[in-house]
């Protein structure tokens, strides 16, 4: 595998002993024309990797905040093809920040895995995280992504058994996304000690960066998780800011920067 932007970014972070800050926003929320600007704003505020949500009609693993973001984005007509165009536009001015598409399998299934992988690569996508594609079901899909240089990012959860964790580590690429709690996105706060305990055996199994998401709301939680993980992923806390400002989207970049700036400072302290 040649290095792609995700690998390069984590290698650089490791060399500097820094933690990755990974924001998630839903593409097309509150309207498609704003998304690329939000992506740049996240990078300006210190984001290392961007997770861009592909809106889906049935976001089963998401709580109300991201469900509503999907509804707003879909209402504005945001579809997979539009999301790929957004990434391509983002790449006009940013060739270094890795972009991971996050979402559910069906929009890719409909486009066709090969077509999707080719178009995603052309657009400048670096990785794919499909919530409803565990490695077992990805056995035929992940190689198609790999052919086009896309990393398949998999989830680990507090309920993952050691046997499964070994399988996931063996199939994982780019980084592993550790879901900090049992629940949907935007759920209650996480327990850092429990996360630390659960990450320890996973560290033994893999050299991949371990990033933690779900329940990270502010600088304080980000810093606490940053002490035990290689990166922190923040979604609902940002998407809530977008929702609050949906009627005056010009205020959103500053709102995103405020949340991420605090986290960046806390992580680098």
């Amino acid at each position, binding site marked *: 595998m040649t290095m792609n932007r995700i690998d390069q970014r984590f290698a650089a972070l490791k060399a500097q002993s820094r933690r990755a800050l990974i924001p998630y926003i839903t593409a097309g929320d509150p309207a498609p024309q704003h998304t690329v600007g939000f992506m740049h704003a996240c990078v300006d505020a210190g984001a290392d990797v961007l997770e861009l949500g592909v809106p*889906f*009609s*049935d*976001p*089963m*693993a*998401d*709580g109300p905040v991201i*469900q509503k973001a999907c*509804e707003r984005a*879909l209402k504005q007509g945001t*579809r*997979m*093809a539009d999301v790929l165009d957004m990434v391509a536009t983002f790449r006009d001015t940013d060739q270094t920040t890795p972009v991971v598409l996050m979402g*559910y*399998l*069906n*929009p*890719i*299934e*409909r*486009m066709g895995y090969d077509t999707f992988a080719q178009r995603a690569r052309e657009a400048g996508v670096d990785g794919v995280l499909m*919530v*409803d*594609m*565990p490695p*077992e*079901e990805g056995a035929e899909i992940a190689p198609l992504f790999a052919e086009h240089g896309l990393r398949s990012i*998999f*989830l*680990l*959860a*507090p*309920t*993952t*058994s050691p046997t*499964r964790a070994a399988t*996931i580590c063996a199939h994982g690429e780019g980084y592993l996304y550790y*879901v900090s709690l*049992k*629940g*949907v996105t935007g*759920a209650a706060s996480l327990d850092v000690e429990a996360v630390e305990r659960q990450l320890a055996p996973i560290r033994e199994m893999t050299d991949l960066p371990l990033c933690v998401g779900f329940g990270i709301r502010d600088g304080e939680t980000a810093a606490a998780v940053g002490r035990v993980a290689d990166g922190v992923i923040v979604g609902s806390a940002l998407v809530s800011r977008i929702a609050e400002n949906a009627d005056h989207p010009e205020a959103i970049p500053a709102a995103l920067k405020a949340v991420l700036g605090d986290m960046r400072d806390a992580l680098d302290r």
Partner: protein
Amino acid sequence: MTKFSDLTRLPDAQGHFGPYGGRFVSETLSFALEELEKAYMSLRDDADFQAEFDRDLAHYVGRPSPLYHAERWSQKIGGAQIWLKREDLNHTGAHKINNTIGQALLAKKSGKPRVIAETGAGQHGVATATVAARLGLKCEIYMGAEDVERQKLNVYRMRLLGAEVHPVESGSRTLKDAMNEALRDWVTNVDDTFYIIGTVAGPHPYPAMVRDFTAVIGREAREQSLAQIGRLPDALVACVGGGSNAIGLFYPFIEDEDVAMVGVEAGGDGVETGRHAAPLTANAPSGVLHGNRTYLMSDASGQVSDTHSISAGLDYPGVGPEHALWKDVGRVSYVAANDEAVLEAFRELTRIEGIMPALESAHALAHAKVMAAAMRPDQHIVINLSGRGDKDIHTVAKLDGLEF
């Protein structure tokens, strides 16, 4: 073509029925599904468990359900003899109870004090609330807000039984959204909660497990046909939403190559109008939803379509993965019945046989009527009368301009 005997050996170890089925779920649920699979596989062949299941089916559900010869209706149609497998006579009024009895026993054996379920027409919700009451389990039901409105009677029944009913306001506010919400609950409360899925869809092992618990319908119908008709029927007909009652009837006949099988989907305003819930009939492309790959109604960009049917229980954009395979290998044919024909069949059976069918089951009746007319009087059709129509009286009355 696949040999039909091969079909009885599915799913494979990964829960696949050919290209369909599987376990497309977020990681948090993987362990729970592995545990459920293990528990189910060990109990499936456990004589004590099976004996307890059979005892409950006999004394609590009231099985075996009769196979009734609808002589007057057959005569009026003037073709094949029509037989009704009377699942409407089960306790709680539909076939759903067979599966919930089985899953609730599993929940009890797994030590889970809380059960959840999704429901469309409310029959599965009622059946779940019923077994939960009997076993002393806490029960919460997710139901699309639109269905809560059109199935008020069942909502009240569930509440009387001690269940908490959550109207789901997201998405299209119907069955698929109820299932999304139930999955969100499960992922949050996975330690103490057993999710009783009501149809042969969802992630492995649900499609196989629900099939096995429901297949008592077909086992009885097969024996009853031999005893009452003197041979196997020429055709089986059942309605298909997710497809549990159809699989329950069809599965034990799958190797009987001379028995034709027809699954009848919800044609709504007509498959050609796009306002329907008939993914198999419409040849919807394959997709992934609710943990399995199957025929799925979605737009060109993969967003799941809103569906339409007069019956809340069939108002679902996907279908059980085993049906998808049965269509592909040609073992079962799938057709659709439109709302109008369904209502006509509902009224006809009520007036001619004194049996008021559920609107879901009336889909099977509507198509069987067409089939029977083209067959000879010495031929026989067995229809799964999967539920009774009491819950639909409000819907039908409204069409007659009456409000209670």
